[in-house]
């Protein structure tokens, strides 16, 4: 509405501001003579989104919770020292053998969340479990993000046969019953003596990213397919930009927002994935503490019935972590891209 009259405007344009129309944010430019030399920096869409996010109290609370969680995970050894228990030692005073069978002590002083079936401190193990969950969840998501984005960019942008082949591969990956296949893959990690060949943590990360990169690839491919029809891509080509440059300089900035949202929502899924594998006995193994294998121990030993801290400690930690990521992701999505919607499935 308020087109700035340039020096060339020989035909006087009727520059009457439409009173009904909303004023342009942040104000149309004053004539070029005003405040020379001082340049105006617009906030990036990302900064605007962060400003919106700061007004979202729920997402903010989730973010704070996650920061605390990361702090706790990082400081786990320190806290363990303060408590005086380390995560893998079997403490005799954790076991109360007053009855016929030894029973782990219930929550109280000394053992904040009680002990597990071997007399290990559930509280300390829960803290250490946070390390595994966050590490696996984030690293696996990062790997999937990088692989998926690369494949999606190639499929969507190069198109043609490349797209056909890559899309078929994605389809097939999605058709795999991933939990069974993940079980198989993890089961293969056994040498003749039943010992793992590579670190189970690394393997779990690899397996999780193997089955989740496709989500990123599909997202990116879809976005790129619509983006590449936009004229700015043609404009870049007409300037002589290479394919690589178009992908990195022109397409990537438009992918950042959906990828941030997607990754934030994928992390909790991957945390659950890790916990599930560990619960099924094929993920992270004892004595390394993971929320999944702690919950497995709680059920397998049957002690969760008499020592509820055994179940509730890792259980609530897992639930809160996943919930916090989901809340943050929802908030991010609303802040970054208010229109999108998402569906997902689990089990």
């Amino acid at each position, binding site marked *: 509405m308020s087109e700035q009259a340039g020096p060339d405007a020989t035909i006087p344009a009727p520059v009457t501001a439409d009173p009904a129309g909303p004023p342009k944010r942040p104000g149309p430019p004053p004539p070029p003579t005003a405040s020379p030399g001082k340049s105006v920096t617009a906030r990036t869409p990302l900064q605007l989104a962060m400003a919106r996010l700061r007004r979202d109290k729920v997402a903010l609370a989730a973010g704070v919770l996650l920061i605390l969680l990361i702090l706790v995970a990082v400081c786990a050894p320190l806290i363990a020292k303060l408590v005086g228990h380390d995560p893998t030692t079997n403490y005799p005073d954790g076991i109360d053998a007053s009855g016929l069978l030894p029973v782990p002590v219930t929550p109280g002083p000394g053992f904040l969340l009680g002990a597990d079936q071997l007399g290990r401190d559930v509280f300390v193990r829960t803290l250490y479990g946070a390390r595994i969950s966050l590490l696996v969840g984030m690293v696996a998501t990062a790997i999937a993000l990088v692989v998926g984005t690369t494949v999606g960019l190639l499929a969507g942008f190069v198109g043609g046969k490349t797209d056909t082949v890559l899309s078929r591969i994605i389809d097939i990956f999605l*058709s*795999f019953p991933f939990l069974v296949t993940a*079980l*198989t893959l993890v089961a293969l990690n056994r*040498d003749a003596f039943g010992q793992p060949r590579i670190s189970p943590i690394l393997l779990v990360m690899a397996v999780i990213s193997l089955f989740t990169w496709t989500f990123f690839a599909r997202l990116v491919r879809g976005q790129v397919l619509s983006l590449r029809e936009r004229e700015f891509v043609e404009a870049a080509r007409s300037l002589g930009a290479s394919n690589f440059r178009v992908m990195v300089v022109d397409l990537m900035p438009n992918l950042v927002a959906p990828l941030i949202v997607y990754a934030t929502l994928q992390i909790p899924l991957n945390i659950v994935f890790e916990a599930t594998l560990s619960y099924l006995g094929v993920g992270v193994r004892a004595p390394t503490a993971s929320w999944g294998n702690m919950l497995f121990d*709680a059920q397998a030993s049957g002690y969760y019935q008499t020592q*509820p801290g055994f179940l509730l400690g890792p259980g609530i930690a897992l*639930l809160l972590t996943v919930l916090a990521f*989901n809340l943050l992701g929802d908030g991010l999505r609303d802040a970054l891209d208010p229109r999108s919607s998402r569906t997902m499935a*689990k089990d």
Partner: protein
Amino acid sequence: MLRFLLRRFGYLVFVLFVIALVSFGLNSIANNNPAALLAPRGASAEAIAQIKANLHLNDPLYLQFWHFLTRGPDIRGTKSGLMQWPPSLGYSFVKQRPVTEVILDKLPATISLALGAMVLWLAIALPIGVLAATKARSLLDRVSTFFALVGLSFPTFLLGLLLLYVFYYQLTTAGFNVFPAGGYVALTTDPLEWAHHLILPWFTLALTEAAIYVRVTRSSMLEVLGEDYIRTARAKGLPERRVVYRHGLRSALTPVVTLAGLDVATLLGGAIVTEQVFGLDGVGRLAVLSVSDGDLPVVVGVTLVAAFFFVFINVLVDLVYALLDARVRVD
């Protein structure tokens, strides 16, 4: 249309073939010797080697795969291969039974679990989703959205464990012996006990799934209610109930039903986690146990059955879409 059918069928076969190949390949790498399992206790090394040769285990992998597809290993004269009729998934050396038989044994439990849970989660989610959509931004909407998010964040096995703790352990210690700890009773044996044993597993699956369906129903319903023909129906003066349930819900259901189809397809391949938590002898638990037993033919079999359900229902959904909606391109 025929062409479309053929294409989709070809796709189905292709995907299954690739999955069979990968899964067979992975399992062949594993470190085990079925011949040793099959041989009588204390058999000599030569005898085991002989059995191994009889099972074609010394053949190159591609030949073994070919055998798997066409005729299966010659065990007790059974000619059993994936491409024979009835299709066979091989022979379990650990269980000393054909894999197909083993899986068919476990399928009723899984089907009972999956279908029952689906009925339950749709019964929970549809009314809530529709209400939340018609009263968008109301208190009810906010509350349901929040609970959906919590449900979404609940790992299935954690919810199962908590349900067990509260409804089995706490109730039982309080003297109300309402729910069993787990296990499966066949429908044909005792329908009441069947349902009794499945209630907690059903709720475990249904509650986590319902969260997703509340969201999907709500957003789909909101979208439909924003359409022009809904406005037209309102402008005609139709009662709001009729507008929402007759005109709105019907089209809003399409994505919900699609999703339900795909989810059930996934579950039919084994609701691994739920079955494991409640000790239900279904296909999923079979897979877990077979993996730890090193019973690889069964693992390959379950993988294939699961993939088959998934791809088949996918194709079916496409087909129904194409039939219902002429706008979907059939090429």
